[in-house]
């Protein structure tokens, strides 16, 4: 064949390096130890020269070691993972700007170390935990999840983290704890867009889950991706990942966790409840008032091959369906 017609899902030549390096990362990591490349993981070195961006996600060092030791899991093994550059340059993190490329550019100001999370509300063990406290008893795992944004695009992301349930158990929630509420850092010095007058979001950003959703084994707290510590634009150092819900539920840079008896008010739901439900389960049959949710653009997409695929109920994670049995998902979207 003289001409090779590239499908948008196929990797282009320049994309291949990072992915192949990534696939063999464990082997590389071993070699790196031998070569005593202490500064950054070889994955990061390869990626850095590859996409020409200067960045230093692999801090703090103690977290880097922990992330590198993450074990692989079967989740998403058959998925085509989005390139590192797509995952780290196309972000909705309004605290740093509204453009998708803003967070990658401006999130440098975020101070992720030291970091602590305040646990409060209906639980036996309230208090403040540092990130080290949270991670010390845990071992991390890698899970490749599909992320479906409410804006009708999606990406496949190799997260590194731990099931939220493990943290919740340590907080010993009371029987009155029916919901869990999360809060992002509030500090306009570090998150400049929080002082913008043109945003309708009331900072800090808040999200919440029902307890059974939070305890579900799929629900992840991420501290890394692509074999490295979570980049700031992706919600460092600690973020939620709920793969069967629209991306805005997966709150970033969490500083507060609160157990409550009543359904918490959450950011987007508060601004436009007719557009963003509390549940926000991925559902091709419930459109956003301004666009269809029946299909999605799987990123990265090419110009003449938008890579559109059909959206699946619960983003294809059928195992959560039982959480919603008897609920009218068209009303409780």
């Amino acid at each position, binding site marked *: 064949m003289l001409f090779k017609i590239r499908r948008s899902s196929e990797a*282009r*030549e*320049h*994309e291949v390096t990072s992915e192949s390096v990534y696939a063999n990362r464990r082997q590389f990591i071993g070699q790196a130890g031998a070569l005593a490349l202490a500064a950054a993981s070889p994955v990061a070195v390869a990626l850095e020269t590859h*996409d*020409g961006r200067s960045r230093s996600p692999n801090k703090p060092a103690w977290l880097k070691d922990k992330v590198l030791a993450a074990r692989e899991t079967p989740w998403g093994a058959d998925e085509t993972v989005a*390139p590192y*550059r*797509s995952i780290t*340059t*196309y972000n909705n993190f*309004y605290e740093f700007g*509204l453009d*998708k*490329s803003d967070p990658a550019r401006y999130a440098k100001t975020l101070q992720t170390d030291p970091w602590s999370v305040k646990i409060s509300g209906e639980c036996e063990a309230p208090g403040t935990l540092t990130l080290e406290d949270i991670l010390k008893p845990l071992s991390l795992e890698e899970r490749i999840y599909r992320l479906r944004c409410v804006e009708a*695009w999606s990406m496949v992301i190799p997260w590194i983290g731990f099931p939220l349930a493990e943290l919740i158990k340590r907080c010993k929630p009371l029987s009155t704890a029916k919901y869990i509420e999360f809060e992002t850092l509030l500090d306009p010095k570090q998150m400049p867009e929080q002082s*913008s007058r*043109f*945003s*309708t*979001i009331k900072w800090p950003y808040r999200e919440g889950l029902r307890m059974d959703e939070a305890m579900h084994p799929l629900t992840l707290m991420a501290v890394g991706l692509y074999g490295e510590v979570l980049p700031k634009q992706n919600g460092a150092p600690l973020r939620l990942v709920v793969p069967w819900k629209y991306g805005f539920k997966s709150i970033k840079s969490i500083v507060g966790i609160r157990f409550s008896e009543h359904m918490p008010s959450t950011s987007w739901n508060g*601004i*436009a409840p007719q557009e963003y439900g509390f549940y926000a389960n991925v559902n091709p049959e419930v*459109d956003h*008032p*301004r*666009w*269809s949710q029946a299909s999605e*653009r799987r*990123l*990265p*997409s*090419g*110009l*003449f091959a*938008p890579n*559109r695929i059909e959206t699946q109920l619960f983003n294809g994670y059928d195992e959560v369906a039982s959480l919603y049995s008897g609920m009218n998902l068209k009303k409780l979207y």
Partner: protein
Amino acid sequence: MAKRRFWSVLVWLIGLAPVVWLLVQVVRLQQGEWDVLGNEPGRAIVFFTGEWSFNFLVLTLAASSLKRQVSFAALMPQRRKLGLFCFFYALLHALAYSGFLLEWQWYEILNELIERQYLTFGMLGLLLLLPLTVTSTKGWQRRLGKRWKSLHKAVYVVAVLAAVHYVLQIRSDWFWPTLYAMLVTLLLLERFMTSKLIRKAI
């Protein structure tokens, strides 16, 4: 005359620069560079062409206001060009939306146009620009005589439709849509205030 030529060339340059830039980006993209137009190049092009269409719409309306209010008349002879660039980018905007985002699926495009209010307003605006574009030539100007002027007042309706189309898309940040809507309001108000009817009444 030299002055007029200067403004004519300037409007041509400003009018063509965005589309030339866009073409360069598309060529780079197709050659495999990745850091152009972001991860969703189609969407970026839709936004870009929409913004430029609106820029030219505002400039078209501003021409006579600037003359009336600050005696700056240089844009007056350029209004046809400005208006045509407005239509040109609006057309690219609609084509990019249909092609890059909806992949020419006609049923879906039609469905979206009816179902999504902001799209309906945008489409009506584009449709209304069509007769204005067709009759923009000197020949049509002559043929229509006095009616030409009243027909081309339809651009006020286009401006309102475009502003509504933009404002309806506000999600969190309302700065740009509001700014454009305010510009349109200001330019239309200025016309209203300076119209013969009102001046007589005052």
